[in-house]
């Protein structure tokens, strides 16, 4: 177990280094710090002096990868690549590129809480509702309920999530006036603001998820242990809930686990449509404002969460299936 964890950690670190190098190369090869300064200071006439101040303020006043003017190890450590990477790995995200520089670390901390408030209940409900719906379809397999259920699933997954949002907002917030159109309030008030995005997000993903889970359940249904369970005289409901569900949990965890990073990172579209100040909205603001420091931070954070959630998924395997051993 310990060896597994250590190896996992090492591999995770290697991936983080890879992601970091890749994004760094991607961002700085096309766009030199001078370009970024010009973009962020804005205006037509930008003097070289202004650019230099901007670069010094944000620590971009060094060579990118290699400094030939220095000696020994400093050739590598006295560069943007090194300093940025070290601070990222220390989870010190620095300031944004925008003219009114904000502290990214602080912003991420505050906004992650908001994203969690939206995404965590959504994640839990998502898994429960999808499993329940697909189990229902499997229970009624080879009947009209199953047929029309699958038709409904295909129809639902053919509709863009943007349509769900626009129609849902129009119906529930504008016509029925059940919930506010958008916005956010901390504390218990948040429920009023989060109910609609959670419901709509649930609907927009239900079709695809339920169909996937249904196929997983049906694959399990063909196996021998199901026949044994039936031969023992178990009712269909018990066969499904006690045997099929438990055995299908492994693929379900794999598929649901891929959403785990987004529980923290939040949903881009839903947060910005509903004016919820989470990390997803933060990213959209950064993209439209071309603030690369924020995008870089979020890429790093995303990779970190991906690695963490993969480790979590592996642990969950051993938990639902005692036959799985970590080694």
């Amino acid at each position, binding site marked *: 177990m310990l060896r597994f964890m250590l190896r996992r950690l090492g591999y995770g670190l*290697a*991936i*983080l280094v*890879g*992601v970091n190098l*890749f*994004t760094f190369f*991607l*961002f700085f090869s*096309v*766009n030199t710090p001078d*370009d970024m300064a010009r973009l962020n200071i804005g205006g037509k006439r930008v003097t070289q002096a202004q650019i230099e101040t901007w670069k010094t303020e944000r620590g971009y006043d060094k060579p990118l990868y290699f400094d030939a003017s220095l000696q020994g190890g400093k050739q590598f450590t006295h560069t943007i690549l090194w300093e940025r990477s070290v601070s990222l790995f220390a989870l010190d995200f620095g300031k944004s590129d925008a003219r009114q520089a904000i502290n990214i670390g602080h912003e991420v901390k505050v906004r992650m809480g908001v994203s969690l408030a939206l995404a965590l209940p959504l994640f839990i409900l998502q898994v429960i509702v999808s499993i329940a719906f697909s189990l229902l379809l499997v229970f009624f*397999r*080879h009947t*009209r309920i*199953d*047929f029309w259920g*699958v038709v409904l699933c*295909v*129809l639902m*997954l*053919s*509709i*863009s*999530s*943007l*349509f769900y949002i*626009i129609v849902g*907002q*129009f119906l529930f917030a*504008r016509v029925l006036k059940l919930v506010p*159109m958008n916005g956010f309030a901390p504390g218990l008030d948040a429920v009023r603001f989060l109910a609609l995005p959670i419901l709509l997000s649930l609907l927009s993903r239900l079709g695809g998820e339920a169909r996937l889970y*249904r*196929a997983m359940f*049906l*694959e399990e249904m*063909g196996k021998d242990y199901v026949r044994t369970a039936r031969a023992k005289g178990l009712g269909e409901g018990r066969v499904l809930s006690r045997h099929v569900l438990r055995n299908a949990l492994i693929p379900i965890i794999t598929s649901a686990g891929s959403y785990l*990073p*987004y529980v923290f*990172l939040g949903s*881009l*579209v839903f947060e910005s*449509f509903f004016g919820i100040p989470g990390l997803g909205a933060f*990213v*959209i603001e950064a*993209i*439209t404002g*071309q603030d*690369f420091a924020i*995008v870089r931070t*979020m*890429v790093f954070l*995303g*990779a970190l969460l*991906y*690695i963490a959630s993969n480790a979590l998924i592996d642990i969950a395997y051993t938990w639902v299936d005692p036959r799985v051993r970590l080694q």
Partner: protein
Amino acid sequence: MKFVLLWTDLALWLMVAAVVVYALRIRAQANLRTTWRRVLRDPIAASAGVVMALFLGVTLVDSVHLRPALATTDGGTVYDTRALSTLDLLLARQIAMREVSYSVPLGTHGFNKESFVDAQGQAGRDYPRLKFGGSHLGDPAVQWAGDVARRATLGLVGGLAIAALLVALTAAALARHHHGWRHALADLAADRTVYPLRAVLIMLTVILLLAGPVIALMPQYHVFGTDRTGNDILVQALKSVRTAFVIGALSTLATLPLALLLGVLAGYYKGWVDEVIQYLYTTLSAVPNVLLIAACVLMVQVYFDKNPELFETAAERSDLKMLMLCLILGLTGWAGLCRLVRAETLKLRELDYVQAATAFGVGDLAIMGRHILPNVMHLVLITVVLSFSELILYEAVLTYVGVGVDPTTSSFGSMINLARAEMSRDPIVWWSFAAAFGFMVGLVLAANLFADGVRDAFDPKARSARPRIFVRRGAADA
């Protein structure tokens, strides 16, 4: 007139050529032929295929671009700076019917009140008559309903007539094998044909009945209304089909080289090659997809802004941007298919025929090319058709985020994006949203159903998950 070959046009036509080559291969190979027959015998997949074919038709008509010659005073020829497609020429009347601003579907008056001064010098505010929509009517309040009903009926009758003609032609074609056209008709009606022709004909009839009235009304009205700048919504929706097709098809094609090459290499050589390739795709999939795409698109944008001399016309610029978007989607999205191909190759390389080839001294490259690659192609096909619809949906999200296609390119994403503000107006402007919804759901649903049919035919494991009522009696024993 001067033909212009845009990059995406080239890619699309190459793709069509590839499909034709593939079709020839299907004819030559018995196993492929059987599998594809299974797809065509599935009534849902066949009907969805008809819809897809229609959308593909629109796409291809929209993919021949030319720059019309402009008359000059000194007799020389100068070409228009805009590249028009053949679809633009077909819809020239609709494009020319440009109003001032919003108007409701089939409307005769504008959506916003305007100030005017009438003949008596009286100033007032009223809804203005549209310049083109219903302009042939002397008194819209009285004549409008009758005129629309007359044209719509004409369109319906026309659609029905063509549908009847299609049924008759099908019956005539079947007559030889079904003992005369009477029997052929009866068999068609009872769905006793080898291929699900009844379903296909019903689908075609429905499409004709929908398209008939639209075509009949189109010359005089804006059937789906106009947008904020007065452009016909129907034209935009039709133009968006091409964008969706390009994104859906080219992006998956762009994933293929990397996914296939690396997947086969990793699975075949195992060892450190495998380790490196696995590390590569794990690293790639660790980055949240939207962020990665956004970062790449921003980079391309910066590069384009720095090098404006790369393109002659605005159309070329937005086209190149779309192609870059496809490439970016491809280069960031190969991890999934690569994983599948690697797993399949690991399985294949242990099979007897590969072992035999190794024993005969066949080289690694030859084994990979001749024995492994053809046997992972079914995975490629399934992935391509499945991700087609996903990518169309994804384009809408990306355009909303601001990293999708160029704002000058009409796409479903930009239509929805605009619709968001329109839906919060009072009274609401719903028609452009509704048109985008209708066309997009039609396309994505057809793509999904067709993809399901292909997957069921190529992947026996998926077939068991299909609801039983879907299975056609004739197809089961065929």
